[in-house]
C-alpha cells in the first residue's frame, strides 16, 4: 500500500476542517469515543448538528474561536491507500502554518464557499500550492447545499478559477462540487447533483497517480551523517566508514560511478548498506548508508551525485521567498542562516527584485521589503557553496529554510529558481 499526503487550503470558514471530519467519518475512520467527545462538545455549545470540524480543531484556542490555527495531521486508510492529511488554517495570520502543511503534500484540496466564490485568500492559497509545487490540485466547490446544488453556480466558479489558474503553473487540476456538511460527493456520489459526472472526492484521492511525482532521474544524495563505529563490538566493522543519508533523487546502485561535491573527486559505490543487509538499489525516499571504493574526505553537508549529472554548486541564488516572521522584515542586506538539504550556511540578501501581489500576481518592483506572509523574489549570496537544483526539478534539493540568527525562529521558506556558481 502506498501513501498519499494531502493538505487542505482555502479561505477561513470555507469548510476545510468540516470536510476532513466528513471524510474521516464517512470512511469509518472515526472512533466511537472521538465521536462522542465531538457530539458532547457540539451539544454543550448549542450547535444543532454534530460539528465535525472539532475532529481536527483540537486546540483549546481553536475551539474557543471556531477557527483552525495550526495544522492538524490526521490519518486514515482505505483498502487502496494510506492517507496522511494536513488540515491547514485558512486565516491569513496563520499562512505559515498552511505552508508547513502544504510543503510535503502530493495533493492539495482548495476549498471555495459556493456562495462567496473565489476570494483573495483562495487565490493566495492556490498560488502558494503552485509555488510549493504540490503536483495535484483539487478545487472543491463547497457548501453546494446553500446554493441549491446549482450547476450554474458551480460553472461560474469553475470558469473564474480556471482563468486565475491559467496564470499559475497549475499542474493537474480537478473540480468537484461538494457539501462537506452533508457529505455530497465526499465519499459517495451525490444524488443532489445528477448533472455532475465526475467521481467523488475520496475516489479521486484513492486513484490519483503519484508514483511519477518523484525525481528518479537526477542522482542526489546529501550526506547527512558519517558512520564510523570505532567502538563497535564486532571487529569486522572496525574500519567501517559509511555515509548515511536519505536519497533526494535518482536511483543509486553498487558499482555506479559517483562524484563527491565539493571536492569533485570520483569514485564508485562499493555497497549500499542498511541494518537489514545490503540493497541492490536506493531511490527516494529511502534512508541508506553508502560505502565508497576510495577514501575521500566526506562530511555532513556534502553531496554525492553522478559525473554527468551534477547539481549547481552555487553561492549566488535566485529564489522565491515566503516570509514568515512576525516582527522583522526581509530586506536587502538582511543576514540569515540558511538550511538547505543537510548543509547550514549564512546568507546575505543582495537584492529584492519584486514583491508579488497574490491577488493579481502583479510584481511590485518598487517594494523595499517583505513583511509577514509576503512573497517575493530575491538574490542571495551564501558563505559557502550549496549543491542545488531548481525547485521545479526537485523539491528536496531546490527548497531551503531561513532562520533568524537572533531569535532562532524559522522565518523564511525559499524555492530556488536559478542558481549560479
Amino acid at each position: 500500500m502506498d501513501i498519499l499526503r494531502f493538505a487542505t487550503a482555502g479561505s477561513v470558514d470555507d469548510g476545510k476542517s468540516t470536510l476532513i471530519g466528513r471524510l474521516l467519518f464517512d470512511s469509518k475512520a472515526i472512533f466511537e469515543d472521538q465521536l462522542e467527545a465531538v457530539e458532547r462538545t457540539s451539544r454543550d455549545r448549542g450547535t444543532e448538528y454534530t460539528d465535525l470540524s472539532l475532529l481536527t480543531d483540537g486546540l483549546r484556542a481553536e475551539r474557543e474561536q471556531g477557527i483552525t490555527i495550526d495544522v492538524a495531521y490526521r490519518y486514515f486508510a482505505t483498502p487502496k491507500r494510506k492517507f496522511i492529511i494536513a488540515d491547514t488554517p485558512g486565516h491569513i495570520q496563520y499562512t505559515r502554518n498552511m505552508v508547513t502543511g502544504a510543503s510535503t503534500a502530493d495533493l492539495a484540496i482548495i476549498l471555495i464557499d459556493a456562495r462567496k466564490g473565489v476570494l483573495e485568500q483562495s487565490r493566495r492559497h492556490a498560488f502558494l500550492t503552485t509555488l510549493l509545487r504540490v503536483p495535484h490540485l483539487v478545487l472543491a466547490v463547497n457548501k453546494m447545499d446553500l446554493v441549491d446544488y446549482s450547476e450554474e453556480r458551480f460553472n461560474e466558479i469553475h470558469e473564474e478559477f480556471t482563468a486565475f489558474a491559467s496564470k499559475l503553473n497549475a499542474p493537474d487540476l480537478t473540480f468537484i462540487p461538494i457539501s462537506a456538511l452533508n457529505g455530497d460527493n465526499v465519499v459517495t456520489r451525490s444524488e443532489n447533483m445528477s448533472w455532475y459526472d465526475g467521481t467523488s472526492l475520496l475516489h479521486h484521492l484513492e486513484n490519483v497517480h503519484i508514483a511519477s511525482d518523484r525525481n528518479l532521474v537526477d542522482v542526489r544524495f546529501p550526506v547527512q551523517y558519517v558512520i564510523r563505529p570505532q567502538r563497535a563490538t564486532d571487529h569486522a566493522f572496525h574500519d567501517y566508514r559509511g555515509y548515511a543519508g536519505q536519497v533526494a533523487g535518482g536511483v543509486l546502485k553498487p558499482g555506479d560511478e559517483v562524484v563527491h561535491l565539493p571536492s569533485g573527486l570520483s569514485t564508485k559505490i562499493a555497497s549500499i548498506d542498511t541494518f537489514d543487509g545490503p540493497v541492490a538499489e536506493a531511490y527516494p525516499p529511502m534512508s541508506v548508508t553508502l560505502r565508497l571504493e576510495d577514501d575521500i574526505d566526506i562530511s555532513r553537508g556534502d553531496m554525492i551525485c553522478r559525473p554527468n549529472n551534477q547539481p549547481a554548486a552555487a553561492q549566488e541564488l535566485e529564489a522565491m521567498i515566503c516570509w514568515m516572521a512576525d516582527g522583522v522584515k526581509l530586506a536587502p542586506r538582511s543576514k540569515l542562516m540558511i538550511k538547505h538539504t543537510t548543509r547550514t550556511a549564512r546568507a546575505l540578501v543582495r537584492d529584492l527584485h519584486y514583491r508579488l501581489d497574490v491577488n493579481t500576481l502583479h510584481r511590485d518592483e518598487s517594494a523595499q521589503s517583505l513583511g509577514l506572509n509576503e512573497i517575493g523574489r530575491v538574490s542571495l549570496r551564501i558563505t559557502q557553496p550549496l549543491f542545488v537544483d531548481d525547485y521545479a526539478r526537485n523539491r528536496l534539493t531546490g527548497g531551503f529554510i531561513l532562520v533568524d540568527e537572533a531569535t532562532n525562529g524559522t522565518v523564511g521558506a525559499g524555492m530556488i529558481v536559478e542558481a549560479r556558481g
Partner: protein
Amino acid sequence: MLQADYTTSQLDVLEAEAIHIMREVAAEFERPCLLFSGGKDSIVMLRIAQKAFWPAPIPFPLMHVDTGHNFSEVIDFRDRRVAELGARLVVASVQDSIDAGRVVEETGRRASRNRLQTTTLLDAIEEHEFDAVFGGARRDEEKARAKERVFSFRDDFGQWDPKNQRPELWNLYNAKIRKGEHIRVFPLSNWTELDIWDYIRREEIEIPSIYYAHKRAVFERDGMLLADEDVVNRGDDEPVFEAVVRYRTVGDMTCTGAVQSAAATVEEIIAEIAATRITERGATRADDRTSEAAMEDRKREGYF
C-alpha cells in the same frame, strides 16, 4: 522493498522518515537522549535508532522517567533490552523528586504520579543538559498531539506554546536553540497504532508480556479495568475480579486501564485493533478524561 516501479510501502516510507529524523538529531545536537519506557512506541523508536546508526552503536543514552508505579514486567523488559544493546540508561525517578520535595504526592482514591512525571522529566533534562529529547508520541493518539511539530521547541521552562510553533517545511528541521532550551523530537509522528503493530510483526520485535492476553486481578472504575496492585488505591465499593485482559498502552498503573481481550499473538492483536471502534487512549487512559484539553494542558507544562 524493491519494486520495478520504485514505489515504497507505507512502512518503508515511515521508517525512512524516522531514520532521517534520528540522524538529523545526532548530527545537529550535542546531547540528545531517547525516552525509553518499555512501551511499544518507544520499543519501535529504539529499533529505528539501531537501524539509523548501524553498524555503530546508538550514539545517545536512553532515559526512563520511572514513577515507581510501573508494571514489573515492563521494568524487567526495559532492563533486559538495555543490557542487550549495551546502551546507557538514565533513570529519572519520581520517588526521588518526592523525597527531594520537588513535588508532592497526590492523595485519595485517584492519586496518581502521572502528572508529577513532568517535573521529574524536566529536572532530569536540566541536570543532564539534554538539548534534544526523542519521544515516541504519535499524532494519531490525541487531538493536541495531532498539532505538534516533529521538532517541537521547548523554552527554558520546558513549555510548549501551541499557538506559536516554528514553521516546518519539507524534511528541513530547525535545530537552533539557546542554552537551557530544548527540542522534543517525535520520529514516529506520522505512524498510527496499526502501523506500530504491523512494524512489530514485520520486524519480529519482542514486546513486554502485558501486551498479550493474560489473567489478571482487576477492578472496574469509570468503565476501565485497573490492575489490583498496592499502588492503586481501590475503594471497598470496587470489587476485585479475575479477567483475561491485555494492555493497549503501557503507562503508570494508577491511570492505565486494561482491555478484555483474548489476543495472544501479534497477528491477533492486529486483527483486534483493525476492528476496534475505540481509540487507544480513550480505552485505556484515565489521565485524558479529566477535561477536554487535558493533554494540551499537560503538554504545555512540559509533559511527554
